[in-house]
């Protein structure tokens, strides 16, 4: 009854309610932040760039999965696999299937992976400061993109890699996951950004910034939004503290970088970290104290493959199931990654070892609390 009444109350007196809804940071916090030299932020959105307005064409079609590629082999064993699975013999069931390239990428030769070749309106930055073309030649040669607002020279090889994968297209799996903000709301960790004013004022100045992974998940309010002004403890392992890097705030735009950063990510079956090299940030500082923009940098390609395939539920390796679900073959990706890589060439071989990537993000004010003792844990694989 109470709920019905409050609903009616709401409808009839909508404007009577507090306009100072709790989703925006407090007036007091903003006033304090204006004076303070240090401001903290917690990420409230994190998504790959799904170029919704103009995703571009894939004239050769979408990539196929292991299920399609091995359809004949699967058809032969399907009934027996099901029988074994229903009887509880999971290992036996999986043993009948073709070798899993997601566990052992060299189990199969390169089946071919369709890259995105055309034009699309992607987000991102010109990371290498050039308008490069693949035809220019060289091991890391690639075609830049032209951005939505007339920008040129945008480096986003991640899009070249995944632009013809069903799960990365508009209304595909990732689009829907990002719509429900899974990467923030179900994440066991959060990404934190701290900005210290070095010179100038809050609105126009030079700053020093640092990126961290938090010690635990964010706090959500009843609507599933991130609670601003919450105190966030930083992860104890310094592997997930980036070095301090320079930035600038001018005309409402925050730019910073480059910096290397390892950021943890634990959502559903993924418990891993991103390794971004020479990451740059460009974001708009909004009136309510939050910021919105992009992280653009080079994703180490070994880390990329690991991130995509090391997917577990308990002891069960789900890399192939994830690949089938999203729409690619692990063996194809494995061989395509060096081809799209455009950053950090190996000094001996000249082969590029990282791939330009864009993350769209948003962040709200938070208090960043450093742990009592930070520890350096042995580097994970």
């Amino acid at each position: 009854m109470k709920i019905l009444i409050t609903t009616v109350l709401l409808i009839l007196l909508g404007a009577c309610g507090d306009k100072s809804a709790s989703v925006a940071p407090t007036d007091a916090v903003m006033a304090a932040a204006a004076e303070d030299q240090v401001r903290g932020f917690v990420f409230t959105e994190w998504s790959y760039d799904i170029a919704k307005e103009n995703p571009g064409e894939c004239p050769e079609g979408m990539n196929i999965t292991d299920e399609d590629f091995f359809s004949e082999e699967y058809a032969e064993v399907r009934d027996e696999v099901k029988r074994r699975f229903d009887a509880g013999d999971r290992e036996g069931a999986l043993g009948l299937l073709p070798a899993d390239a997601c566990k052992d990428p060299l189990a199969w030769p390169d089946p071919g992976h369709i890259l995105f070749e055309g034009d699309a309106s992607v987000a991102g930055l010109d990371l290498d400061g050039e308008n490069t073309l693949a035809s220019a030649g060289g091991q890391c040669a690639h075609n830049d993109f032209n951005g939505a607002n007339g920008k040129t020279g945008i480096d986003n090889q991640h899009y070249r890699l995944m632009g013809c994968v069903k799960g990365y297209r508009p209304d595909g799996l990732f689009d829907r996951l990002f719509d429900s903000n899974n990467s923030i709301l179900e994440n066991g960790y959060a990404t934190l950004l701290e900005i210290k004013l070095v010179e100038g004022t809050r609105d126009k100045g030079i700053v020093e910034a640092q990126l961290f992974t938090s010690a635990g998940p964010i706090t959500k309010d009843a609507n599933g939004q991130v609670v601003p002004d919450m105190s966030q403890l930083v992860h104890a392992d310094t592997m997930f503290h980036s070095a301090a890097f320079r930035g600038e705030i001018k005309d409402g735009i925050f730019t910073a970088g480059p910096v290397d950063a390892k950021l943890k990510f634990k959502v559903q079956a993924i418990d891993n970290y991103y390794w971004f090299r020479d990451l740059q940030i460009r974001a708009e500082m909004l009136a309510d104290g939050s910021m919105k923009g992009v992280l653009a940098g080079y994703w180490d390609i070994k880390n990329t493959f690991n991130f995509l395939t090391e997917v577990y539920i308990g002891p069960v390796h789900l890399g192939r199931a994830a690949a089938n679900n999203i729409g690619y073959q692990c063996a194809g990706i494995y061989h395509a990654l060096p081809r799209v890589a455009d950053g950090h060439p190996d000094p001996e071989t000249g082969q590029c070892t990282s791939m330009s990537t864009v993350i769209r993000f948003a962040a709200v004010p938070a208090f960043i609390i450093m742990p009592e003792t930070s520890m350096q844990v042995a580097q994970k694989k």
Partner: protein
Amino acid sequence: MKNSKSGGINRRGFLRGTLGGAAVSVGLPFLDIFLNTNGNAMAATGAPLPQRFGTWFFGCGMNPARWNPSTEGIDWELSPELLPIAPMRHRMNILSGYSVLLDGEANQVHRTGVFGALCGGAPKTADTVTGPTLDVLISDAIGTRTRFRSLEMAATGNPRHSNSLRDVSSVNPAEPSALGFYTRIFGPGFSDPNAKDFSPDPSVLLRKSALSIVTEDRKRLERQLGYSDRARLDQYFTALRQLEQQLELQLLQPPPLQACSTPQAPVDLPHDTEIDNVMANHGLMAQTLALALACDQTRVFNMQFSDRASSLRMPGSTDTHHTLTHEEPRDTVLGYQPNATAFVLKSMEAWTQFCQTLDAVPEGEGTLLDNCLVMAHSETSEANTHSIVGMPFMTAGTAGGRLRTGLHVSGVGESASRVGLTMQQAMGLNVGQWGADQNQTDRPISDILV
């Protein structure tokens, strides 16, 4: 023998010779007042009818935007995916918006949603749960004196399709076949409950004794009190006497189960995951279950209409419901996945039929459904993203009048453990707080509790 005001008997005499499992004959002289004038049947306002609890599970959830009713309370508007329940809406409650809170644990797809809700906490690893499931807790309290502590059924015909467990190493297997289920209950081994010899629960005798000790103190206390305090003491002893009377009723042979009758054996149908076969098997099992309940063979049951990551299929198709939720594109005009959503409607249809089957058995003043509390739920809300936010919960039945029905309650931002706590309290369990970590709660959903 002391004749105290409470009308009770000297506990010494009562206890002598009645403990140690010896049967009590109905004809004890001092208990005549509980027999009606003919001296054979129980007075109509006698022992309460047994109350039953059950869960009804369907896999791969629903589309929140089309399932959650937009209004709350008693006149809530039927949403597109709830249309099938229209004929039974007044016997049900819709509880939308309740979630399993993760608190840093991983969302184990198709697992956290269901075991989070049934055990009261997000499982920490893929091979653990935070406690026994809800139905096991309830059967520990109310299922110890029936032939079966609980009954599990799987309309998909797979005995592994069961969510009822004490811990991960002891999962209660489900009956896969309607005929097998029937045989287990009404085949050899079934004894007509109306002809049973009755032996009273010795623990009830002990409880009565404890209360009669207290009654001895009454005079001494009354002497010490003023007028208004004496009146309050009177109220206390009235409440005590009422509990004593309840216990006395439990010591008598319960009335014959009028609703119980032995059904015909069902036809053995193929049992697999094709939707028509599942619907048919589900119907047969529900009918057998209804009579099993009426004959007090069990008081706790778990029906799985479809399994976690629903393997239901349309006739002739190899795409399961689960696959469709992940792979079928969203229709741009309709705004949802049409083939995947067809299974949601089928699930709601089956749920309605299940409740109607229970409602078709007259019992006491109403029907069997009135003396049941069934909780319908799924392991996810939106299956496509494995979302465990705002999962679907429904109840049917009133648990003998302990639950209101016909309501939609929205629990946005709240833990699903509130649903589990409410179910346990409605079934009379003495639990004030339930759940683990962020999902721990001491607040039942008072809107639906009487």
